[in-house]
């Protein structure tokens, strides 16, 4: 499997320099998938012929003297809630089984334009609702580091694909931690960019005001490179930031000398955060101090309300976003005598229990008489959280916390009670509510020898500070 673990930057450099072909790289990665994905189940869809054909096009471009771009020949895995023209896009739901979008997501267009080769579509919790990938209608994904454990979620397939060497780069989506938490559990780097940095056009929406697309990689530099390719303004997304992008890759190695780092105290004290996870965060802070950063402890009081606010806002938006799956235009239809009965039958059979639970919760939170108490109140909490973060960022440049309260847990551990599962996201949710960027980088292991992720957060559009901090941690990791 050796070559399937090289970085995206190395793959692209080799392909551009003619040292090896994109076809060779594709074959190596397809071989890794063939060997191990039967067990891991990272992918819902792989079309080896299409992968080889795409790689051959890159090689033809190189042969013709053209530069295919910064991701020349780099195999990428795409979470299956990203639309790919003519390629099945299921969101791991029965309701979209067999649907082939007639268009590509903006991020897919940008990856392909940069020379990337799409390996396949990865597994997820149905409609990205979950933290373990156990909610996939097509069966769970296993953690490549310990197949008896979950890979995290909802982007578990993408995290597992990168961890297993199926691709050096995968894209996921992060609504409440769905990139960072599986990255932590699978021991890879996961970046949730600032809301608006990456176009959501073509991402099947879960909660529109929280969703953001980002990369999984095995190195911080690869995450920077991926952001350089997929980020930037898109006129097809009205919430896309018009701010010009800096060169993230160029900033990765600039160190943390003089950078002000805050350890977010509330997130070390939260219920359920394992002691060894807290220990790794403290060691990470020491490593940054040793590299020249000023480290202080900082309080962001309102983050303790994040989980509650999130579980009102996200389901509310989801209940509306998922209304369109009604059996009329695409996807599943369960026949019935009237249109209304057909819609009910289709949705009842097409959605899994967690999706139904969140649709119900969201519908209730928006319904007459409850809007102010639930959705309206949660939006006010959002203001509080953003305000407290802004105050913290006047004192420090970045904040440090655990990504996930624990290392990877076993299948079935948290499925009995939804709330227990939701508590996985307690450290990641606040950044989605504020819209700020956050990255998870592996830093040592827990008592079970499974990886611990440390989360680095920063103010809007401060991805370069996050990346250079993460790069220092990457180098200092035990």
């Amino acid at each position, binding site marked *: 499997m050796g070559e399937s673990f090289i970085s995206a930057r190395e793959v692209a450099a080799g392909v551009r320099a003619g040292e090896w072909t994109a076809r060779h790289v594709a074959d190596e990665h397809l071989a890794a998938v063939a060997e191990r994905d039967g067990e891991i189940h990272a992918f819902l869809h792989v079309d080896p012929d299409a992968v080889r054909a795409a790689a051959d096009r890159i090689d033809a471009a190189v042969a013709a003297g053209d530069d295919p771009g910064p991701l020349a020949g780099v195999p990428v895995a795409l979470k299956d809630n990203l639309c790919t023209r003519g390629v099945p896009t299921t969101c791991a739901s029965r309701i979209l089984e067999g649907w082939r979008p*007639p268009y590509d997501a903006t991020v897919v267009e940008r990856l392909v334009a940069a020379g990337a080769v799409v390996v396949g579509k990865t597994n997820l919790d149905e409609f990205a609702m979950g933290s373990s990938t156990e909610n996939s209608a097509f069966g769970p994904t296993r953690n490549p580091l310990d197949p008896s454990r979950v890979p995290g979620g909802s982007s578990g397939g993408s995290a597992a694909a990168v961890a297993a060497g199926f691709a050096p780069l995968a894209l996921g989506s992060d609504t409440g931690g769905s990139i960072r938490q599986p990255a932590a559990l699978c021991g890879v780097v996961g970046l949730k960019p600032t809301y608006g940095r990456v176009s959501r056009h073509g991402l099947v929406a879960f909660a529109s005001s929280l969703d953001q697309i980002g990369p999984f990689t095995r190195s911080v530099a690869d995450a920077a490179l991926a952001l350089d390719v997929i980020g930037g303004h898109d006129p097809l997304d009205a919430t896309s930031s018009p701010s010009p992008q800096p060169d993230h890759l160029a900033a990765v190695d600039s160190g943390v000398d003089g950078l002000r780092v805050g350890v977010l105290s509330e997130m070390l004290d939260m219920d359920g955060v394992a002691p060894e996870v807290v220990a790794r965060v403290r060691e990470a802070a020491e490593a940054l101090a040793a590299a020249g950063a000023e480290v202080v402890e900082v309080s962001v009081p309102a983050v303790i309300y994040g989980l509650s606010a999130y579980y009102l806002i996200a389901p509310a938006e989801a209940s509306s976003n998922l209304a369109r799956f009604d059996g009329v235009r695409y996807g599943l239809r369960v026949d019935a005598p009237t249109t209304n009965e057909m819609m009910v039958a289709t949705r009842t059979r097409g959605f899994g229990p967690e999706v*139904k639970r969140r649709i119900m919760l969201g519908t209730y939170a928006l319904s007459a008489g409850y809007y102010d108490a639930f959705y309206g109140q949660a939006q006010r909490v959002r203001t509080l959280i953003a305000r407290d973060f802004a105050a913290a960022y006047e004192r420090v440049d970045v904040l440090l916390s655990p990504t996930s309260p624990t290392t990877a847990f076993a299948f079935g551990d948290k499925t009995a009670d939804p709330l227990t599962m939701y508590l996985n996201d307690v450290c990641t949710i606040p950044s989605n509510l504020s819209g700020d960027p956050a990255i998870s980088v592996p830093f040592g292991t827990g008592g079970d020898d499974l990886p611990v992720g440390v989360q680095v957060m920063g103010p809007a559009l401060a991805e370069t500070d996050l990346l250079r901090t993460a790069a220092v941690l990457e180098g200092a990791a035990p």
Partner: protein
Amino acid sequence: MAERITRDDVAKVAQLARLALSDDELDTFTGQLAAVLEHAEDVAALDLADVAPTAHPLQLGNVLRPDVVGPTLDRDEVLAAAPSAEDGRFRVPTILGEAP
């Protein structure tokens, strides 16, 4: 704070959301939704009358698109993906009642 969610509330919400729930599911969901809403009590109890709601993390506005015609989809491709189509249109069973 709103009162604890009841089985009847859950049944009404299921109807609004176009989901059919069995009696068992109704019971399970009632308990689970109540637990999540109970956890949200901390938020509901906050006095936030003076705090403006944030609908959106971005402080942007006036994002407009020029009125220029763009590409359309191929009808055959679109209708081929439909569960049922006829005569260039999407076919649905009898509709009971006019649109609201």
